[in-house]
């Protein structure tokens, strides 16, 4: 077959290449540039090789914030995914309440992150906030600005409040797409409601849950605004997650080299963990 040669087609590709270069490639290369050099301003750079990478990887500070990050992400996944499934299962499948439930569920997702942080900050303040006053009123000493445990609980609770809806909506969509015949067949087969959940609903939800877990993993692993507004990473460094730490190094201390090296390590960790998650969850899918 004769192939048409038309070099003008490149003109259509150029804008995309330009855009991607401008918003992804060039900034990323700047980061790479910073990560292997030392600068004292005035655009004077000294080659440092992998020094910053070694420094970051060997620093206790990075290890601690990495572990905090893992703990936080692990906790919210363990809470939000099962909770989201339970809420989705208990939502009505038809009738006028469907849209009411959907809107209520979508509401937290519509609120900007910094507003969520500010809301929860005010809500949880021990002396003036509704939640803080209530808990203290019950005789439990609670002050998230001073107690690490309280700060963690509040941060996790805030994230659960903000993002469980996403899991709910995805799981709900998955549940609605299961054909009635499955439920009918299960009735004929005498399956208990537990068996229906375990043998029909959960397997059919596998794909949407994979997406939900990946999204929640990535989002929570890169979380910045909400805890920054709520606790500012404190008390002390107890809620300083990776991105908060990164910003402290880059913009607080202006250590651009280590910050750049940390960014790249951070990026690779997210990429690697996403790949691991995806591979694990999709295992046995294709046969």
């Amino acid at each position, binding site marked *: 077959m004769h192939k048409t040669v038309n070099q003008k087609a490149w003109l259509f590709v150029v804008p995309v290449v330009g855009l991607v270069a401008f918003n992804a490639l060039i900034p990323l290369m700047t980061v790479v540039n910073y990560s292997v050099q030392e600068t004292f301003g005035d655009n004077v750079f000294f080659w440092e090789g992998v020094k910053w990478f070694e420094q970051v990887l060997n620093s206790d500070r990075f290890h601690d914030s990495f572990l905090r990050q893992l703990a936080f992400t692990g906790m919210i996944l363990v809470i939000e995914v099962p909770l989201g499934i339970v809420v989705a299962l208990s939502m009505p499948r038809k009738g006028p309440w469907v849209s009411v439930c959907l809107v209520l569920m979508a509401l937290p997702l519509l609120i900007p992150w910094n507003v969520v942080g500010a809301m929860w900050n005010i809500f949880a303040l021990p002396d003036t906030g509704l939640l803080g006053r209530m808990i203290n009123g019950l005789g439990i000493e609670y002050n998230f600005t001073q107690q690490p445990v309280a700060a963690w609980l509040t941060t996790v609770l805030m994230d659960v409040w903000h993002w469980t809806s996403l899991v709910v909506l995805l799981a709900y969509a998955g549940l609605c797409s299961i054909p009635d015949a499955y439920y009918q067949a299960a009735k004929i087969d005498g399956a208990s409601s537990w068996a229906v959940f375990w*043998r029909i609903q959960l397997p*059919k939800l596998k794909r949407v849950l994979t997406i939900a877990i990946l999204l929640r993993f990535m989002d929570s692993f890169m979380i910045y605004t909400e805890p920054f507004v709520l606790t500012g990473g404190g008390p002390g460094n107890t809620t300083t997650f990776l991105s908060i730490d990164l910003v402290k190094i880059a913009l607080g201390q202006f250590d651009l080299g280590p910050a750049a090296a940390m960014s790249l390590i951070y990026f690779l960790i997210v990429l690697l963990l996403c790949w691991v998650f995806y591979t694990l969850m999709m295992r046995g899918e294709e046969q």
Partner: protein
Amino acid sequence: MPEEQNMAKITLQNIKHSYLRQPVESQDYALKEVDAVWSNGGAYALLGPSGCGKTTLLNIISGLLTPSEGRVFFDDNDVTDIPTIERRIAQIFQFPVVYDTMTVFDNLAFPLRNRGVAEDKVKLRVNEVAVMLDLEDSLKRRASGLTADGKQKISLGRGLVREDVNVIMFDEPLTVIDPHLKWLLRSKLKELHQQLGITMIYVTHDQTEALTFADRVLVMYDGTVVQVGTPVDLFERPGHTFVGHFIGSPGMNILPCEIRDGAASFAGNVLQTASPLPTADNERVEVGVRPEFVRFDDSGFAVEIVKIDDLGRYKIVVVRCNDSTLKMIVDEDIRIPSESPRISFDPEYTRLYTDGWVVE
């Protein structure tokens, strides 16, 4: 499981069903008024076009739906309000349902295990059914990896594996199966019916499937059962113009009819029919005769030949008389008159219909 309780006569009494909460007119009902008796051990087919209420009727028998009105009896027990699991019913759906995470063996064992059958008995039954359906080789495989017909065999198998069933109902089970296997599986089902002697109800919109599978066929149309009978009954004595039209290829000729001077006539020609004359004279009267029972006859009435389709062993001749066209099936060895053809109807198989229903 008390074996002697197996099998029962199923009686549907004045069943009506609407999917609307407050049905008003008859159009709101998916089932308008159904009375039917399915006797023990029969092979039944439920035949009708899509959307006529076949599946609704099955779901009412199995208890997946509670009818808006009417009662369902198994033998003399009213089971209308008894849940599906206690009805001892197996139902196979149009699209295969398999439990993806289980092996083929576990899929087949699932209905038994849910009912607390002992594991050695489960093994025995599953292996028996696997042999019946040629699934022995894939018992250890995951069910999700099978082809559509493999999956549908599993669905069938889950129905057949139980020993406590009163009736097995098939809801267009071979829709997704390719034609060659369709034929094999249908013969298999027929064979299983003879072997097991369980009542089977087979829902389909395909007349060939219905007529080859069943001893008795219920024809449904627009939410009602229009005729129940053997395949021969449906062919020779259609109770409703719909039956005449739906069954047979080509379907029955349904022609306008006039009642005048104590005789039925079509296009001015007096007809001898197997029906008595209808009494009420304000109804629409039609005459129905199958193409098989129309023949060339010099003493008949004049028609004009429109078209001849030669199908090898026979020909389908389309003729016109006044404004009506009708079809006739003519054996290959019969000469088709080329000039002024005349035809007549076999009086024994010519019937009158008022408002669609046969006059008897």
